[in-house]
């Protein structure tokens, strides 16, 4: 682990720059993607990637150059490219960063169970083949797919203020998906669907329920195929954690990103309905809503000790008793806005610069077990597992769809319905939060696929949430 530390320290110390500050962020990543589709093992896809980003601050202008040439000459060349660019844009730069503090921390961080060996490639394929083979024989089951993604990352950050931050992490993404078809309609049911990513090892596979998933997921796909469409109308909505994660992500996470509020993302990812003046003033949701940035849940995808600019990460409330209190803004956004933020300046790899990102964004549990949540609903619907997401560029008007719906009548779960969709407006939706599940309903989930930024980046984000009830929501089904 961290084998390149001594070499990078030596090469970093030998770099020469006319800038007042510079840093090096080295990232090495190995990945395996394994899958078995309809009992046939697909060829494994393996990857190894490494490189470094040099960032320089010259007369208050910061620029970067990314290179995979880690030789002394290669790193020096990249630093000089960044300096040349800083000179070129001087006078046209939006920001003067001469007064911005820089990171000075020194720490190591490792994923839980990182020292434990992960099952071999052959053992992983055997597990996937076993689950694939457990799908029953039924001509309506036209496709199924068991998969496992394994990603290990080492990062070393050094800067001229003396910071040295090292992280070694392993991320596991199990999944299972089945499609049923009746000649006209098709319905897909999944476990995971890239939403059950966690840090760790074999323990992640045990927690996500992949073992034994094949037959269960196939049965649910067939149930959906036979189910009626979701009825249209206004109902109470019970969202399970694997839909709550998407709801949190799109209508709390993105609107609270400070770089969006400052306008950086207006050409691509969009802006926000939240204004800088709303922090400390805006009642974002009902008093039951408590949202945290929490890098301390070890298995959650975006737990870390420091972000990619070197800021130390701590748990912080972003929304407390429904009141908006703090943005998702890293050191640079805090400097620009004057607001206190969190350590969320993150990059997807060595070839992209850190920007404000979600990390672990969670809803704190309430006090009601699932039975009580259901028991409190007169006419409602339970939805689980996101399959469709769409929201406007200010992160306000949304429409989300799930795989699985189940009607609730007079406090009891009733029949399964297909194509459950709902729509609403973020600024009002969270005010309709009427009940929050207790810790027994909470799941720690996460996805590797959050896209944003110019140039574009996808990063890992974690979302832990209990089941939640929203009153009087507009729900509807599909065409078939």
């Amino acid at each position, binding site marked *: 682990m961290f084998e390149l530390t001594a070499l990078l320290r030596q090469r970093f110390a030998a770099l020469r720059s006319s800038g007042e500050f510079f840093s090096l962020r080295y990232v090495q990543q190995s990945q395996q993607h394994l899958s078995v589709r309809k009992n*046939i*093992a697909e*060829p*494994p*896809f*393996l*990857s*190894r*990637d*490494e490189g470094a*980003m040099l960032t320089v601050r010259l007369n208050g202008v*910061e620029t*970067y*150059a*990314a*290179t*995979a*040439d*880690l*030789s002394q000459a*290669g790193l020096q060349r*990249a630093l000089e490219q*960044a300096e040349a660019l*800083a000179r*070129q*844009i001087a006078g*046209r730069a*939006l*920001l003067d960063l001469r007064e911005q503090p820089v990171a000075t921390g020194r720490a190591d961080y490792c994923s839980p169970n990182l020292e434990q060996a992960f099952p071999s*490639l052959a053992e992983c*394929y055997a597990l996937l083949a076993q689950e694939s083979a457990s799908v029953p024989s039924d001509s309506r089951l*036209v*496709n199924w797919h068991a998969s496992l993604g394994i990603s290990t990352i080492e990062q070393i950050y050094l800067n001229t203020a003396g910071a040295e931050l090292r992280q070694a992490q392993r991320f596991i993404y199990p999944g299972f998906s089945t*499609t049923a078809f009746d000649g*006209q309609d*098709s319905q897909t049911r999944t476990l995971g669907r890239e939403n059950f990513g966690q840090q760790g090892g074999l323990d992640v596979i045990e927690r996500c329920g992949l073992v034994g998933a094949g037959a269960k997921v196939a049965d649910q796909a067939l149930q959906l195929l036979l189910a009626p469409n979701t009825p249209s109308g206004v109902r109470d909505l019970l969202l399970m954690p694997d839909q709550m994660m998407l709801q949190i992500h799109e209508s709390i996470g993105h609107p609270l990103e400070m770089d969006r509020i400052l*306008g*950086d993302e*207006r*050409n*691509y990812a*969009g*802006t926000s309905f939240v204004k800088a003046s709303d922090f400390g003033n805006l009642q974002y949701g009902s008093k039951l809503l408590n949202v945290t940035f929490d890098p301390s849940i070890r298995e959650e995808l975006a737990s870390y000790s420091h972000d990619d600019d070197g800021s130390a990460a701590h748990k912080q409330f972003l929304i407390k008793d429904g009141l908006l209190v703090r943005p998702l803004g890293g050191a640079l956004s805090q400097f620009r806005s004057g607001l206190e933020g969190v350590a969320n300046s993150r990059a997807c790899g060595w*070839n*992209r*610069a850190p920007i404000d990102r979600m990390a672990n964004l969670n809803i704190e549990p309430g006090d009601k077990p699932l039975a009580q949540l259901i028991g409190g609903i007169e006419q409602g619907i339970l939805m689980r597992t996101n399959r*469709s997401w*769409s929201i*406007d*560029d200010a992160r*306000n*008007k949304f*429409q989300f*769809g799930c795989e699985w719906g189940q009607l609730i009548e007079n406090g009891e779960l009733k029949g399964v319905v297909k*194509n459950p969709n709902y*729509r609403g407006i973020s600024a009002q939706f969270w005010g309709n939060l009427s009940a929050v599940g207790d810790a027994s309903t909470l799941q720690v989930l996460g996805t590797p696929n959050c896209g944003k930024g*110019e*140039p*574009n980046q996808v990063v890992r984000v974690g979302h832990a949430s209990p089941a939640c009830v929203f009153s009087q929501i507009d729900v509807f089904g*599909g065409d078939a």
Partner: protein
Amino acid sequence: MAATPLQSFQHLVASLRDAVPAPEHFTLSYSGEHSQFIRFNHAKVRQAGEVQQASCVLKLIADGRQAELQFTLGNDAEVDQLRLQQALEQLRQTLPLLEPDPYLQLNDSAWQSHSVQDQPLPDSAEVLAQIEQGAGDLDLVGIYAAGPICRGFASSFGAFGWHQANSFNFDWSLFHSNGEAVKANYAGQTWDHEAFAVRLQQTREQLDYLGRPLKKLAPGQYRAYLAPAALDEVMGMLCWGGFSAQAIATKNSPLQRLYSADASLSPLTSIAEQVSGSLSPSFSDEGLLRSDLRLIDKGQALDRLICARSAAEFELAANGADSHEAPCALSMAPGDLEHSEILTRLGTGLYISNLWYLNYSDLPAARMTGLTRFATFWVENGEIQAPVSTMRFDDSVYSLLGSQLEALTTDRELILSTSTYGQRQTSSSHLPGALVKRLTLTL
């Protein structure tokens, strides 16, 4: 003097030919770029940097098994040779752990392809100066990306392809003080100061309309004109599995009812994968020469995109599709609606410049939802009246490009991908605008 990307790739291929004797076989693909990225906010540079990256994907085939490994190149011949050897060793250790692959299909053709478009790129200092001169007084936000992009492929059967193109892509928006915005793009291989100035001026002029009071629409059904950039978002959703042989066969395609002839689109709708003449390489990531394909002809499904694996599994003939079977050069046939007639023919309804964040409400029914974004106007009697606040639509492709499609424009727009996920993309689409009799708005 440092080796060129082509020379680096040739050296790796030469050493692989020595290191991988029959009956083993290999393919090696290459992807690299040296890019400058300059982000703007409030017409100033918000973030700027350079990225030099290159990677190879080595596939090893032996005993009816295959596996592939992607590795980053270090811009150093010795380092890269070592990484290639390590990759080969790891794959040799991996193959015996796998079951034989029934869908393995070897492509033993020894095709050759070479395309280098190395027109000089614009000087970024001049670009910055021109942007400042033309929009320094405006609230401009966006990104300028420029530099060479390289793609390569070689196989142990003797195939060798190289594609290199210098290109730039400036993608920007201008914001009115009321928060409304107009989006534009200037991309290509040769920067023309005059052409850029004209493009920028056109965008400035649209800002005037955005200053008018916003019109708020109620949910309902409206006549609408979708400009090419808006139609591109609809097409982007269809490209997400719509034409894929595997998605069609496994009932995960939004166009499965079209391909099973249970549904049809308007006779006006003809869509092709038009690789020849596009900016995309003439070969796929699997090393097959791409074909031009008629995907939809006069509303009926014809060809589908078939990669080597799908060809083996579904007993079809591969046609040069990438392994993910998405179009890379989508082209929609034009219609007869003259540009000057768009507003007149629209009459009263919505002029939609862009759509945003589409997804499926009901995938088998090809029903999708999304939002208006950037410069959407309310038009009455052929005259632009007011910008329209963000609205959500929810409608089926069988309606938008089927029963409700009234006309397509004679002029088409070539839209080069601005996507930079992982690397700068080379895909494009060539699309007309579409006049539809009814678009359903829901929120």
